[in-house]
């Protein structure tokens, strides 16, 4: 516990997981330790665990007056979308487009599936209404509904009994105000039913994806408003007066008031927060994040302290065009189930994709699970100490895991339970590494260029197995690995992304038009920033644009400029500079440029970012105080390379200030365990982060 709370203020980050809700208290400015706390999650109302956790911290001596901000992320919006359990939505669109949501992008997930089904629609056809309102590609309103038609439409909408309405016109993005006005006119007529305008929310070209933004927003807004109100009530009851922020999918945070109206911007905040933590705490390396939780593992790439955003992610089978941190699933989590299959001649061992989840969980949890999982394999190979799981909070039943693997061993003809468990880890590792390698190939990267930063409950445990397989030679385990997403929430900047499609050939007049559009976006952004309590002094505006050579089938997002608020009107450079930015980026990415071709300006993108005070940064090199290696706290029997070996166990704290230890060893960190194989050395810095390096990058000693 820190002793200087009276003079240091702090930010509290809260991440709600399936099993536990993590809280971290991050002191502002340099120095001071991050305080961590875990409390069981309360899925029926996540804010209950938030309140409990904060209460625990207060009892532990946290001063309410020292809290600068509370930042909270939640998955209830995402869950509502996946389960279609949000508000009953009716959808209004231009005449002729009743089937926009049903036809979607036409493609079905599998070619070899005669029983293919379309995705469950968010709005069934009978709740889609058409209206005589239509714009052209160049923004002319060619059909406008009369007052009478609006009255009739309102009547029709009422007959579908919606809790929320989404409105999206074809070509609506070309003049967002038209649609916003229409939305207001309908809202007046419908009284208490909210009407969400697609173009007013996200004026980007592509009618299906933009309409989905409005439909999804309408689907979860009532639910999220209720939840945030509940949260606000609970926090006020605690006496908390500091502002509350909500983690966003773009790796930033939003004010509670803004998030309540725009909840769609927060639905993927969970995985994004961990990547933000890596970006901000390891800003000077090429980082590959590896988040291994209970049901799955995710990866993401961070270069120069900046997470990479994507505008083509999926929520189940629905595309989301809003920018979100580019996180990809690579396979198993600790709860992934081990199954045997095949026929009389060929036995196969499969790991995942089904998961035991938190309930019943792995066999060793003793909650009724009888199919072994990856966590059970850690236990049966001796990597995990059954008495030390989650810092000793939850003892595991190793004998049960061994029994389950003995069964697997019989199924596949392995000679012992431990041998079967070792095979399971090997297969899980290869599955993850091959998925990861393919994802990197898609982006043009090689794994060996990166430092692997693992987090999540099982991330540190599996990280070095994965690094060995991928030829990665640097691994950095954050001191807060098990609560990394909560840390990311606490230290993330305020950030909002804005966009507006232009879709015209880039010439002088279009460049001037872009200037107007960007000024408008910047004005909206600054207004938002002030309303959210962000600091205009620290704010940065980042402008980028989707561009292409005319006739090309694909666009390239080109970073154009970055300014403070005072420089907003300099964001759009002169025509020649804009063109050159595109030519240069095209050459970098695709290997050629065409100076004679016309360039098309697609979508302008502006990010408004305002960082809180500096986050804790790991020491560049671990400080060496004592040239002696630390003393192990215990020894453990570990199954490696088909044999048992007696290896040393170190608590992470013992490493700090000492000469590096050499693998094979095991390091117990808070709420997790790091397996250090042969040929790796480990040392800790003053923040408790563990730096691991492979000594001989050869293939001899494999994991």
């Amino acid at each position: 516990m820190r002793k200087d709370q009276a003079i240091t203020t702090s930010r509290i980050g809260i991440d709600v997981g399936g099993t536990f809700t993590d809280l971290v208290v991050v002191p502002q400015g340099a120095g001071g330790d991050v305080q961590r706390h875990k409390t069981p999650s309360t899925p029926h109302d996540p804010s209950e665990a938030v309140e409990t956790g904060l209460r625990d911290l207060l009892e532990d001596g946290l001063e309410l007056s020292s809290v600068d901000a509370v930042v909270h992320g939640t998955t209830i919006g995402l869950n509502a979308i996946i389960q279609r359990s949000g508000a009953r939505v009716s959808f209004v669109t231009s005449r002729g487009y009743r089937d926009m949501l049903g036809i979607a992008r036409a493609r079905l997930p599998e070619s070899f599936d005669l029983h293919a089904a379309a995705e469950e629609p968010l709005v069934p056809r009978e709740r889609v209404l058409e209206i005589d309102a239509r714009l052209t590609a160049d923004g002319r309103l060619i059909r406008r509904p009369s007052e009478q038609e609006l009255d009739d439409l309102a009547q029709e909408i009422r007959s579908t009994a919606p809790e929320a309405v989404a409105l999206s016109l074809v070509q609506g993005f070309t003049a967002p105000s038209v649609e916003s006005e229409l939305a207001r006119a309908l809202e007046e007529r419908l009284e208490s039913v909210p009407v969400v305008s697609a173009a007013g929310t996200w004026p980007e070209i592509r009618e299906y994806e933009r309409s989905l933004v409005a439909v999804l927003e309408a689907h979860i807004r009532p639910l999220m408003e209720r939840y945030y109100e509940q949260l606000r009530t609970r926090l006020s009851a605690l006496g908390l007066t500091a502002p509350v922020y909500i983690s966003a999918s773009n790796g930033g945070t939003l004010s509670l008031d803004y998030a309540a109206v725009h909840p769609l911007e927060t639905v993927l905040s969970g995985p994004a927060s961990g990547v933000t933590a890596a970006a901000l705490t390891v800003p000077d390396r090429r980082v590959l994040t590896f988040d291994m939780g209970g049901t799955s593992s995710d990866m993401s790439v961070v270069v120069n302290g900046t997470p990479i955003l994507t505008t083509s992610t999926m929520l189940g089978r629905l595309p989301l065009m809003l920018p979100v941190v580019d996180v990809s699933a690579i396979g198993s989590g600790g709860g992934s189930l081990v199954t045997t299959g095949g026929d009389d001649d060929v036995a196969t061992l499969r790991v995942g994709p089904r998961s035991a989840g938190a309930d019943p969980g792995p066999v060793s949890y003793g909650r009724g699970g009888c199919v072994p999982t990856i966590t059970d394999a850690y236990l049966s190979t001796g990597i995990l100490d059954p008495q030390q799981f989650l810092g000793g909070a939850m003892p595991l039943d190793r004998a049960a895991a061994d029994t389950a693997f003995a069964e697997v061993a019989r199924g596949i003809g392995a000679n012992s339970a431990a041998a079967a468990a070792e095979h399971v880890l090997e297969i899980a590792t290869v599955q993850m590494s091959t998925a990861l390698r393919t994802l990197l190939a898609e982006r043009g990267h090689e794994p060996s260029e990166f430092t692997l930063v693992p987090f999540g409950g099982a991330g540190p445990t599996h990280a070095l197995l994965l690094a060995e397989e991928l030829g990665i030679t640097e691994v950095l385990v954050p001191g807060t690995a098990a609560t990394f997403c909560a840390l990311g929430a606490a230290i993330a900047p305020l950030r909002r992304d804005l966009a507006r499609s232009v879709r015209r050939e880039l010439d002088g007049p279009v460049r001037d038009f872009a200037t107007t559009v960007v000024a408008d976006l910047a004005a909206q952004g600054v207004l938002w920033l002030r309303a959210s309590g962000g600091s205009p002094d620290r704010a940065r505006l980042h402008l980028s644009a989707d561009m292409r050579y005319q006739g090309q089938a694909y666009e390239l997002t080109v970073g154009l400029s970055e300014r403070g608020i005072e420089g907003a009107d300099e964001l759009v450079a002169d025509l020649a500079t804009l063109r050159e930015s595109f030519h240069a980026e095209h050459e970098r990415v695709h290997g050629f440029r065409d100076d004679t071709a016309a360039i098309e300006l697609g979508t302008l993108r502006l990010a408004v970012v305002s960082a809180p005070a500096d986050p804790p940064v790991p020491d560049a090199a671990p400080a060496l105080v004592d040239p002696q290696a630390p003393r192990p706290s215990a020894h453990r029997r570990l199954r490696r390379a088909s044999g048992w070996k007696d290896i040393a166990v170190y608590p992470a704290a013992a490493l700090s200030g000492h000469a590096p230890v050499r693998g094979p060893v095991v390091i117990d960190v808070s709420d997790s365990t790091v397996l250090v194989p042969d040929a790796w050395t480990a040392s800790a810095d003053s923040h408790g982060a563990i730096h691991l390096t492979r000594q001989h990058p050869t293939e001899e000693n494999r994991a």
Partner: protein
Amino acid sequence: MTTDIARDIVALKLRAASEEMCKTLQRTSRSLYVKETADFCCALADLEGRFAAYPRNIGVSGFVGLNVRATVEAAAESGPLRPGDVIIANDPYSTMGLATHLPDIQMIRPYFDGEEIIGYGWCFIHCSDIGGRVPSSISPSNDSVFAEGLQIPPVRIVRGGQIDPDVLRLVLRNSRTPEANHGDFQAMLAALETGCRRVQEILDRYGREAVLSTKAAMIEETGVRTRSALRVLEDGSYRFVDYLDHDGVSGVPVRISVEITMRDGTMHIDFTGTDPQVNSAFNVASQGTVHAWLVTRVLALVGTLDSEIHLNAGLTRDVTVNAPHGSLVNAQRPSAVGVRHASSSRVNDALSGALVQAAPQVVPAASSGLVVPVVLAEQRAGGDVVQVLEPMVGGMGARDGADGVDGRDSGISNLSNNPVETVEAELSTTIHRYGLREDSGGAGRWRGGTGLELVFEVHARASLLTRGLERRLFRPWGVAGGHPGARSELVINEGTATEQRPAAPDVIPVAPGDVITLRTAGAGGYGDPLDRKPGAVEADVRAGLVSVAAAERDYGVVVTDGVLDPAATASRRANRRAAGHGVGRGAEVSRWESVFGIEDYDRFVAALMARPLEERSSLRETVLREALDLLPSSFPAGDVEDAAIAGARDRFMTALAAMEA
């Protein structure tokens, strides 16, 4: 029972290598076909040329049954293959069907362990243009492969890691898009290099024996699973014939006949009775192999029955094919083959028609069976702007237990559509409607998926192309009492004085103000529509997918003011049951076969096939024309007098007798 963990791991790595090859190719290519429509693939083959590791859900899945062996052997005739060599080819005939039309450029690189070949890396891409009569190289009216572009037999384009500049120059000189092709070639070589590196890593760590035995085991595992999946098809022989409206030039329908014989999960497909090869580009150069375009529907069935099966040559291990020499499905040089996928749509339907007899609970009724890239070529000062409005498909067939998917069909190419907003930004056109087509899905206990309707107004002088607009004559069929789907339609200025229904859907000139309406066929229904739950019909009526009139006519369901009338429905259904119901294949097929009966036509095809190759197609057309000339031009659509049918049949039978004499 034995296990081999190394084998499981090597298999994982080989499959991942094929996927990484695809990602490498896709990222480094810059051509439209690769980036947007994913018309490419990569895989790893074993020493017999069979694909052992094939990617899933990246690129074209349907080519998994192809074989690289003939191509490799042809290239090796000019000297043994060395490390770093890469073979290029696109000629369907000398690759034994590996290349399925000329724009699909194949590259193969032998992978070595020391001095010995241990397998092959393969990739293909659909390039933008490989020369020939028309830009992009493909046209239905090409009458010979020589019109379709440069034919590249298997030759080395890279020797020992060095590109052969002469071969490269020769190939690029024969394309209208040399730079794009050059870029594609580089992307392909990069993909093969990625594959080589990964295979080498696997060899270094696990050894040659592990790689060779794993590939064999992978194919074996998929073979075993495939056969076990296909045992759901009851033993026996099942025949089905289906028709293409026309072959693109002659205007007479083309028949495809299949007979599937199942025995304990093994399958033999006999195409005897399929029309001779045609004088247009609809031919499939299968070379008599178990060719990709002849078994796509079978692969889809296996994928449906076993969704976790790994794709590789094991899928076709127990499938054999008899495709008669010189028929549409085993065309001989110099037949044109550019539009072979159009024939494949109907081959799929014919296969389904046979398969559903063997597994009525599993196989759906006919899907709409068409892909129509609606293309508008606008004449502008700076040159024509040619753009696809939407790739139009229909719906999917109903099956026992489920309605078909409306307006979407993954069966042939599973393409994404284009945002209307980007289309309108690039062409001078307004798309008034892009939606599901009411009353088009075949009625049934389970309803067939609806077709689509596209209505657009052109604002500039332009040419309209609707190639692939099939099923305007013969409907997608229903099963087990299910009705066929509605026929496709193309109308210009519908409901006005200038209404026009173009007969041949090739190039149609359009003027500013013209409104074009294109409706794609609906898919077939499954089961008697009188058995459909009244509530489901009511829901369809409320959703606007079935009209009140059709609900009453096809389903015997009475819906008044959006609400089901149970009493009226019950009495209507009782009356209708007594009256019987329509034929699942549609009245058009019945009329056609009342002139050209299935068995008579079998004899006709046999007589044609006895003639020299080059005479067959024109003789077929002449005989059919003579009979069709005695019938209304709308035949087989619309009512026809019995006398006319009888007259036409006599004419046909007389000609047949003469041929057999």
